[in-house]
């Protein structure tokens, strides 16, 4: 811990040097961020060590403003000489970029003044040998689940500790250490001609909060086995249940559509929707940036602006965009403290778990994996490859593969009938499964 404290002081000094150097070179304002991350990642496969990676990443970035013109530069080199050269490079760009009435630091009055400890740093003291042993336990559990598990892509244990410091010429400077640990496993199953692979992982800020190695392995194996002998289904319209880990992607697409940069570029299917219904009236969505131990918690955003709890959707109505100061000025609004994105997003959940939602759906498609990037953020048109299960009488009937699901995000959000109580907790965007009333399925 003392090590981290002194390292944090070093990084703060680097940020202060960057800002001083920018001023010295004539910038009217500047902001700088420095980060340092160290970690260990081990992968085992078929019971043997496959890779041991020691990671150490440094990064430094500075943006300078000469009035309304700006320039940026970054480097992985934190030496004093590199700091000087990086600032020079940024200043050089500012000579050629255009006057932009909206550019500049966020307003000084919005800077965070309280920087509480959000409980984000829990280094995991473990040797390489202990990490390998844990990964082997995980993979072994997966391989011993069933005879049809015949091969493995291995299990990986990663543990990373990072430090980040941000400062600007308003006098704001903040920094905090954080940790992140994960264990993942992917195995292959075979039955007849069918060969499938699936995975599972656990992720936490504290090592002891990870799911047990054995349960991660077993889950990876069960997910793989469930996919064996998948078939296609007929082209048809049907209700679709997006399993929680997949529903996270839908929630992220919604957030992408209310992001300031998409809105001022008129590149969003939710343009001019503030104050209008976007979801059914049962839906509420909010963010909680100050959540202790949260995966995306921070007391200030990427511009030093104080973060705060807020609702994006209240009873289905869009109540806030996701804005940084630049997008806010473009739109004639105030920043929402979302420079760098949303932090710990939650949608209110219903009473039913996945099984309950299957019962509620009765007949339709349960989607457990999506493929491709087929979301058009300008029009909301949605078309993606899907894998999952066909459901009838509220029960899974058989695995389904090589189909697509399509619709339009606007209708899909309005057609969100229920959100499950089966919250996906491994993401900073948290939701249960989503039951959507109707989508087009393309298959045979």
């Amino acid at each position: 811990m003392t090590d981290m404290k002194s390292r944090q002081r070093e990084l703060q000094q680097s940020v202060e040097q960057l800002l001083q150097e920018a001023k010295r070179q004539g910038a009217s304002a500047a902001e700088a961020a420095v980060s340092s991350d160290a970690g260990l990642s081990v992968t085992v496969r078929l019971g043997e060590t496959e890779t041991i990676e020691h990671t150490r990443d440094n990064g430094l970035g500075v943006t300078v403003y000469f009035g309304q013109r700006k320039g940026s530069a970054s480097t992985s080199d934190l030496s004093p000489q590199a700091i000087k050269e990086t600032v020079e490079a940024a200043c050089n760009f500012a000579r050629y970029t255009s006057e932009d009435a909206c550019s500049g630091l966020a307003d000084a009055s919005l800077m965070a003044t309280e920087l509480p400890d959000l409980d984000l740093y829990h280094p995991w003291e473990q040797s390489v040998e202990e990490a390998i042993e844990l990964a082997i336990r995980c993979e072994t559990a997966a391989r011993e689940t069933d005879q049809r598990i015949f091969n493995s892509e291995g299990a990986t244990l990663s543990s990373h500790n990072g430090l980040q410091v941000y400062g600007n010429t308003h006098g704001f400077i903040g920094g905090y250490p954080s940790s992140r640990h994960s264990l993942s496993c992917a195995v292959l199953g075979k039955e007849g001609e069918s060969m499938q692979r699936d995975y599972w992982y656990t992720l936490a800020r504290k090592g002891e909060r990870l799911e047990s190695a054995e349960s991660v392995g077993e889950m990876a194996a069960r997910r793989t086995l469930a996919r064996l002998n998948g078939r296609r289904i007929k082209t048809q319209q049907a209700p679709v249940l997006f399993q929680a880990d997949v529903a996270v992607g839908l929630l992220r697409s919604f957030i992408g559509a209310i992001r300031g940069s998409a809105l001022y570029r008129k590149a969003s299917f939710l343009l001019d929707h503030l104050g209008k219904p976007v979801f059914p009236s049962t839906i509420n969505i909010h963010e909680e940036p100050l959540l202790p131990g949260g995966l995306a918690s921070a007391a200030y955003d990427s511009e030093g602006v104080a973060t705060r709890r807020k609702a994006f959707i209240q009873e289905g109505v869009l109540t806030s965009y996701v804005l940084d100061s630049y997008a806010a000025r473009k739109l004639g609004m105030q920043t929402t403290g979302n420079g760098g994105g949303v932090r710990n997003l939650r949608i209110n959940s219903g009473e039913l778990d996945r099984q309950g939602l299957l019962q509620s759906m009765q007949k339709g498609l349960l989607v457990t994996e999506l493929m491709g990037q087929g979301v058009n953020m300008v029009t909301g048109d949605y078309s993606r490859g899907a894998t999952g299960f066909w459901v009838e009488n509220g029960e899974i009937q058989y695995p389904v593969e090589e189909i697509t699901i399509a619709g339009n995000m606007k209708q899909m959000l309005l057609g969100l009938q229920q959100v499950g109580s089966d919250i996906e907790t491994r993401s900073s965007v948290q939701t249960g499964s989503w039951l959507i009333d109707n989508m087009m399925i393309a298959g045979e």
Partner: protein
Amino acid sequence: MSDLIQIAQQNILAPVGLGESDLDRMLGELTGQGVDAADLYFQSSRLESWVLEDGIIKEGAHNIEQGAGIRVISGEKTGFAYSDELQLPTLQEAARAARTITRSGASQRVRIAGTPLATQLYAPVNPLPSLNEAEKVELLQALDREARKQDPRVKQVIVSLVAAQDIVLVAAIDGTLSADVRPLVRMNVHVIAEHNGRREQGSSGGGARKSLDYFVQESRGLEYAQEAVRQALVNLEAVDAPAGTMPVVLGPGWPGVLLHEAVGHGLEGDFNRKGTSAFSGRIGEQVASSCCTVVDDGTLPGRRGSLNVDDEGTPSQNTVLIENGILKGYMQDKHNARLMNTVSTGNGRRESYAHLPMPRMTNTYMLAGEHDPQEIIASVERGLYAVNFGGGQVDITSGKFVFSASEAYLIENGKVTHPVKGATLIGNGPEAMSRISMVGDDLKLDKGVGVCGKEGQSVPVGVGQPTLKLDELTVGGTEQ
């Protein structure tokens, strides 16, 4: 000793006082009983990017990265560490960390030696200063003007320009000493057009391992602007895409994303060594229709996916993957080649010094066939004609792949009719390849914008193909 090695040594090693003998000594410390391979990878990269938006030059950014990655391999085990500081003590610390993969053994002497390359596929230029700042600004503005003057329905134009130089030096205990100086430039134009309240987008771009005047020559940059607007206007007219299984004709060039996803990834050596690919153990078998010959060719001069040498120092090659439908070979790096008792095909690539190399594609394309593209379209009664795509993805184990059309048309009674909205196409690699029934005589390579992601690492790649027809593929539209 080749010029490239000299350039790399002057740029990376000389400033920190390292010489070839230091590399020999460091490699010597990596040897020992149980060590099958070990290498040092030094890299120095400079990247510059510019963005024009709303008619103004909004952003300019510069990035410098430098570091070294050290890898030690014993059997199937790999130890890896890296550092962004190039001082000898820091490198030795990283070497010790990587070396922990095996414990035993006394070190041996290593002498590295560079061998000159037969040909260079691109000049060792630094593209960053190849136009001055005022010229870069003018180029961005010219593309913005060109896009806006095409049509009053164009409401938003974003133009970006990226220039990068990547200098790499690799030394290995097998005596390898090799270097490359890689220029890479790319421009993109993204437009949004609006008509009667409907908004649609279009985008185009290109790039090469050349200096920035590539975009000025032959009005290439201006063509990207025209093309982006054309696509956006086509999409303004698009009706809902069909849903279901039908014949699909893919246009030439960029739709070669099909090959990258449907067969490319599945033929990478690591997946096949581990037996996790749908193509594992199938060399010599029919995996595509007999009109398909697919190669991975890193030796095309100046192209985005080309490399003089890969990131393990192996010269690039033209590797036949599928010949007349028969699976001929996999793409290999040194590690997987050794474990499969074969040799590297020059496909060992890594995103940076901070990443481990693995088998990756370079420029993957299908050779031309004999059909006139018009004849191919005329052979379809009802189907889809897709000419532009976004990205794709593949599950190499089940063989399922997707790729997303961004410009497509209906084919009705042998004629291209309405434009339809973007849709995802899904298929099974070997099955889809066996359903290719006609291959055009119009082989085209893409314009140089491809980025391939694998296990979190991104590398520049190229794709290409002639017009081709798949008798059946599932189209993920909304119209039954």
